[in-house]
């Protein structure tokens, strides 16, 4: 861009602001994620009834709700560019990395909105209070960062395919499996009131996963975006 002299961070911010604007005109992904998480939570609490399974099951259920709610809406960031044929303009405006980072931040924002709503409802409806709330929050944050970081590039891949929704879940599940296992482990420790040392190796794994996946998607995104 010879004529436009906007800094790197400026472009990322602009991409993020553009996402926010176009999202809150329709609120498609936002509604999908929020409603999907509410519906899944309701299904889980109804089907459990008055039974309260142990913390292992509760931690797993929490992340299953989160995973499927995320799968319902996160692909939208790139799918909507293809559907409205605006991807070409975005390519002209910003370099690939800025587009990817802006969209990852936007997906992260969506996930944070979802968890802010989901966690209190989960605690109320399922009567499960994390004993170690700081560990719970840190595990949740790391998990969400990994979720947004590794699925945004998959959303870009899926947006050019003919069956988008199903393919997104099929492709992201094997990639997210290490994240799910580590995050469930951390949530379980926080439910039973363990300290940071008890979740040490899972926290390390989750952190390493986040860093590696973010780096990998930034490195590979050029090949997806330039076609």
């Amino acid at each position, binding site marked *: 861009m010879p004529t436009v002299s906007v800094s790197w961070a400026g472009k990322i911010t602009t991409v993020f602001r553009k996402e926010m604007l176009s999202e809150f005109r329709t609120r498609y992904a936002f509604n999908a994620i929020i409603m999907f998480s509410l519906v899944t939570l309701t299904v889980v609490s109804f089907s459990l009834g008055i039974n309260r399974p142990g913390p292992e099951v509760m931690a797993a259920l929490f992340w299953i709700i989160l995973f499927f709610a995320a799968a319902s809406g996160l692909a939208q960031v790139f799918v909507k560019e293809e559907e409205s044929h605006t991807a070409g303009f975005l390519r002209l405006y910003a370099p690939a990395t800025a587009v990817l980072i802006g969209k990852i931040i936007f997906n992260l924002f969506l996930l944070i909105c979802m968890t802010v709503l989901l966690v209190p409802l989960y605690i109320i409806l399922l009567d499960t209070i994390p004993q170690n709330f700081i560990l719970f929050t840190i595990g949740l944050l790391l998990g969400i960062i990994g979720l947004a970081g590794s699925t945004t590039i*998959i959303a870009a891949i899926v947006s*050019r395919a*003919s*069956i988008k929704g199903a*393919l997104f879940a099929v492709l992201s599940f*094997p990639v997210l*499996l290490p994240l799910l*296992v580590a995050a469930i482990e951390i949530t379980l420790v926080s439910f039973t009131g363990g300290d940071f040392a008890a979740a040490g190796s899972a926290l390390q*794994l989750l952190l390493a996963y986040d860093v590696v996946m973010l780096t990998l998607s930034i490195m590979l995104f050029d*090949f997806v975006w330039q076609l």
Partner: protein
Amino acid sequence: MLKLLIFPAMALVIVMAFVLPSPMNPQISLGPVDAYRIFYFHVPAAWVAALSFVVGMFQSISYLRTKDADYDRKALAANRLGIVFATIFAKMTWGEFWNWSEIREVSLFILLLIYGGYFALRSALNDDDVRASFSAVMTIIFTVSALFLIFVLPRIYPAFSQHPSDTIVDNQGKMSLSPMVAIVFGLSMVTYTALYFWLYDITIRVDRYIYKLKSER
């Protein structure tokens, strides 16, 4: 040339697998000792499935670097053969079909899921260049996440494995196979690997002809 060696070697392995005493020490075996003869075939098959995955990743990286469609064909061939060799084992001695604490079984199952996702993606993309690049990118992402599973998960879950762990290497790090068993097992590994590369070569050649026919039309 390779196939002339593969057939007698494979025949030898099959015969020897039944002639030799079972590789399992009867004192520590859980079930019928003869069932452990599967060792000669299932370890090499699992090894080839994992090898194929690595070959696929290297061909994918080469494709992204050169954009040469031939590398895409090679990656496809590797993944296609990988899904043939990746088989799910349920041994009668375990008494159950599936066990999630069995880390090797789980990682192979995930390998199958990954191959499934790879082919679903390929069939959903129409443009040749887009299909080649996207599936190469996805293969690399899958490989990195599989590395996490294979190397990191067993440390977090020191779950007991139903695979005997001291069959090949014992606690002191020495070979615990008897020399004859070790030779046949090594031959089986080499034969499986050779079989893999032979099939790999054939698959690529067939794909090249299909591509040539299509572009002539």
